[in-house]
């Protein structure tokens, strides 16, 4: 699953640590999400999407073969 976290974070001028603190996870989790190495829970996906004022589908890009 791909996502737009890095792009949105850049647009909102947020560091990985700032976003991590706001959604209550470690910076390493944000790094893993941005690299596509870890898929978030629905709750974390919701928190991240809500932080950017978007829906989950706008931030996390599901692909057919997943």
């Amino acid at each position, binding site marked *: 699953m791909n996502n737009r976290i890095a792009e949105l974070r850049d647009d909102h001028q947020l560091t990985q640590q700032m976003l991590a603190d706001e959604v209550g996870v*470690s910076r390493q989790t944000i790094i*893993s999400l941005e690299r596509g190495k870890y898929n*978030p829970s629905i709750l974390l996906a919701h928190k991240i999407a809500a932080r950017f004022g978007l829906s989950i589908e706008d931030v996390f890009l599901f692909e057919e073969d997943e």
Partner: protein
Amino acid sequence: MTQSQKTLWYAVLFAVGVVLVVLGILEYLGPYWSGLGGTLAGVAGIRLIQAWRYHNDPAYAKKLDTAHTDERNVFVANKAADLTFRVSVLVLAVLSVVLRALGHTDTASTLAIVVGAQTLGYFVSYLALSRKY
């Protein structure tokens, strides 16, 4: 368990460990018990230092709280536990067969029972968790 209960628990474990080590040094107990005491005192001592830092360093406390609740960290810990369980069951099963072939029947039987108990434990846990979720 609250943080202060944990601290108390680790203090008790540390004290027990130190007593075992001292009794070992004074030769009231054998090396097995003093070794166990040393391990206990070491692990509990580290936990006590962590608890002390948690109470006195807000930045460390925040970092520790995040680490404990961080979903990726929990995911990784569960994965590690899962992998360790699978590998240990496999290693014990292979070891049991090898020891049986080498004629160490008693040890092989003990290992086979342990593997059986672990496998049974897994199925019981699976059934219990299936009902819960």
